[in-house]
């Protein structure tokens, strides 16, 4: 999956599951869209579905510092790299 494909998938998830429309890639999701810990748990579950792979405890912990869509894409890219 290319970086562009990851971005398309993440934006699709944010739109369909979180009702976040046309966000900027560096928007702070927490500040602008009230994205909270409940959303973070759900997003990780969506990423597991996307990757068809279970995330480890360490990987989930790393995600807790994520604030922007660009950072989500970096995170998914890194997960894919680890699994290739």
């Amino acid at each position: 999956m290319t970086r562009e494909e990851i971005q398309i998938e993440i934006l699709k998830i944010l739109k369909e599951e979180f009702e976040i429309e046309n966000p900027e890639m560096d928007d702070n999701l927490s500040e602008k869209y009230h994205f909270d810990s409940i959303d973070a748990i759900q997003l990780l579950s969506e990423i597991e579905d996307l990757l068809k792979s279970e995330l480890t405890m360490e990987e989930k912990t790393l995600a807790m510092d994520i604030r922007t869509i660009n950072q989500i894409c970096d995170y998914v890219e890194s997960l894919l790299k680890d699994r290739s």
Partner: protein
Amino acid sequence: MERKVVITAASAITPIGHSKNEIIDSLINGISGVKKMREDDLLYPHLHSKVFGAVDYGIDYDFKRKYRKTMGPVAYYACQVAKEVIEMADLKNDFISSGRLGVSFGSTHGSPIVQRQAFQAFFSGSRPGHSSISGVDYLRSMSHTTAANITRMFGITGRVISSSTACTTGSQSIGFGYESIKYGKQDAMICGGSDEYDTTTVAVFDNFLASSANFNNTPHLTPRPFDISRDGLVVGEGAGAVLLEELEFAKKRGANILAEVIGFSCNNNGGDLILPNINGITQAIALGLKDAGISADEVDFVSAHGTATKMGDIIEAQAIRNVYGNSPYVTGLKSYMGHTMGSCGAIETIITLYMMEYGFIAPTLNLDEVDERCAMIRHTMKLHKSDIRIAAIQNFAFGGVNTSLIIKKFDN
């Protein structure tokens, strides 16, 4: 410190309607909300009973996603009726978040639909990447999901009580809310119960041969509380909420007072978890009167639990006779909509309030021929124009829990 407690708003989502007018119209015209059960891919083919008291109309929810994300169907119902009582009572935001408003609200066991979806995904192998049930699914399905979502949606910071005692969930919620105000712990409480469409509940009663199966092609003719042809209960869904306030607080803010809660009792049979118990129920009814400080002959109307099970109705009729004689009118309101489980105590209280306000007593639907073993009380056989001054709402649950709520018309 004992303070007076009044009801200042009420709202219900029921199989016979959502608005007060719709519900009253069904009661006056004898319209049943029991329908043929919807087919599902789970239990439908295995059930004897194929009827259900369903909420089969749309509800215009206007909840933001940040609230919806932690809600299953049971919490949608709960938050909707809570929203309506807050609006009806015109509660101000500074009071809502003052810590003096609490929530006493429950359901039988959270959201079975969400639980089922989570377990299906987990055990069917359709989501192989998952090692655990999602935390969000827990918030949507947990036993106190109704109360928690109500506090979250409205920013309520007072105490939370979330009864989960099957058929007494709603009545306990109102009773415990009443006690919270009476003894000065809170100034107001949003109280009620909610349960969603769920065939696993039907399966439980089916298994005990306690669900109605003889009227699958004529659903409006069942359940039949106290009738000779009754053949068991019909499971239903819905929600009900009332706002309770301390009397002086309500007066001070100019609230419209609908009725006063004057008594509540709750006891347990101390033994069998399923069979109704004449001593336990009789005692619960008597304790309710004692708490209210009134005599039995002051009660004009009894809302019976009246599930239409073979034994339950006989025991309840005997207990009513033991305490009240044959003086008050007795109606089994489940005859209109089935047994709405965790919400029935709240819905039956709200319908009693409506009848109190509009001066009538609805008859028990489908009570064509009273079973002689239930005949020793004053059944409401037809619609009466009648001024209810004091009413008792009684409910009994699996687990041996019994409750009686006593409400009194308020003289403004």
